[in-house]
């Protein structure tokens, strides 16, 4: 398996670099700069049609297209995996239109576009993570009108959000929200971290890398600068807690990482393995061996060839 394409290739002719025209890039770039200046605030932008359907991360794709340069190295993940159809097609899209190098290795990437996970390996100062966001507005389910949610954000009127979380506690005895768990950024804006598991929320706090969020259908860009306070909403008597897993990864024996349940065979065999496939592979290369590594079919170990 090659972790990185060998050379960077010339982009196909007939496209502007990274597909978007320069006017659109400038508009998105200005939005990104304002998003960085007001951490957690949703900047409206004029989202463009992309040659892929909504739901395929067109917001993230437009942000990535606007920041990429010829020397960048791009990684794309979907639910922690580099090999899903969504991740593969976005990676191919940028190889074709920008000619940039791509990688599956978190440590080698300068730009990581993601749907639903933050890599287990901490990101460094030279890295930007771009989240594909379906619904950027954390107050949407409390107040569907954008004119009203803008007012609530303007006034930092977030009482309703706390009420909603507290209703969870009344009903379930704990806060039941496990994905898109709301955070407060730099002590001001309440932000939806996109449908990442709340397991990843602590990684957003004081991250060394820059975090950018793009919602294509909803036409919003927002950001968390590096080294910024990100607090998951909670209550004194019900503090925020991340998910824990009772077993280590069945393939690489990692603990304290996010695991997915996978079906092993047609007899109902199941195991829990790293959601971050690159992190899992790197650990196995380093000799870490999980309890079921020997019995697992190659395809489930992520030993297919990367595009």
């Amino acid at each position, binding site marked *: 398996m090659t972790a990185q394409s060998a050379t960077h290739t010339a982009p196909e002719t007939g496209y502007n670099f990274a597909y978007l025209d320069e006017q659109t890039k400038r508009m998105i770039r*200005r*939005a990104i700069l304002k998003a960085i200046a007001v951490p957690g605030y949703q900047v409206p932008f004029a989202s463009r049609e992309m040659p892929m359907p909504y739901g395929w991360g067109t917001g993230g794709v437009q942000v990535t297209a606007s920041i990429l340069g010829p020397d960048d190295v791009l990684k794309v993940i979907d639910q922690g995996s580099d090999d899903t159809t969504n991740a593969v097609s976005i990676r191919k899209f940028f190889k074709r239109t920008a000619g940039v190098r791509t990688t599956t290795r978190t440590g080698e990437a300068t730009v990581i576009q993601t749907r639903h996970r933050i890599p287990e390996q901490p990101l460094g100062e030279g890295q930007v993570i771009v989240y594909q966001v379906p619904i950027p507005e954390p107050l949407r389910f409390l107040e569907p009108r954008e004119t009203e949610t803008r007012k609530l954000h303007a006034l930092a009127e977030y009482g309703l959000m706390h009420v909603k979380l507290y209703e969870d506690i009344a009903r379930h005895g704990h806060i039941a929200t496990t994905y898109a768990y709301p955070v407060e950024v*730099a002590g*001001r*804006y309440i932000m939806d971290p996109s449908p990442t598991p709340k397991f990843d929320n602590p990684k957003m706090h004081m991250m060394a890398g820059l975090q950018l969020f793009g919602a294509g259908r909803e036409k919003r860009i927002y950001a968390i*600068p590096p080294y910024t306070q990100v607090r998951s909403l909670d209550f004194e008597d019900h503090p925020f807690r991340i998910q824990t897993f009772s077993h280590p990864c069945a393939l690489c024996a990692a603990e304290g990482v996010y695991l997915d349940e996978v079906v092993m065979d047609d007899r109902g065999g199941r195991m829990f393995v790293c959601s971050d496939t690159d992190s899992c592979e790197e650990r196995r290369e380093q000799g870490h061996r999980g309890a079921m590594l020997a019995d697992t079919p190659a395809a489930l170990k992520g030993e297919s060839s990367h595009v």
Partner: protein
Amino acid sequence: MTALAHGFGDPVTDAQQVFHAAMNALARPGRPQPLTSGLEPPRPMTPELAAIALALADHEAPIWLDPALAAASGAADFLRFHTGAAVVADPGRAAFALIADPGMPLPVEQFALGTAEFPDRSTTLVIAVEDLSDTNGWVLRGPGIADRQSLLAAPWPHALADIVRLNSAVFPRGLDVLLAAPGRIVGLPRSTRFVEEI
């Protein structure tokens, strides 16, 4: 009329590199980011001011010029030709304000501060200085800064303390600043504060 100075040699790549420097500058306040500009704009516009304008301004993002640039022959024509942006006299309409003379007072409260609901609709000030370093000087804190960040600009822009004070009072509205010296830029987004009052 004399010939206009040329624009970017490679518009796509040059604009991306200048944006990249501006993005990192605002994401890591006070930390100098390298910025190379091959431009030779009419003086007193500096190559760095011109690079930021050409990379980011256009017909949707008007430019305001400080008196030094407004009085300079060819500065407004150069910008209009290469960006398509309107050069506006009203600071409140400007997406970008280019300031060539950091020693002069600025109409700080007249720039666009954004609104409570749309704080992004605000002016970004781009101020030319002669030198920038992070070895000592004023101490900054805020998002993008792990603990504390030093910043020394020479000359120290006359309006900077007022801008930071205003930002602290009106946040999330406010003004974002890029300081541009030969070969490097520094960002001071509206979220940045001085550790001690100036």
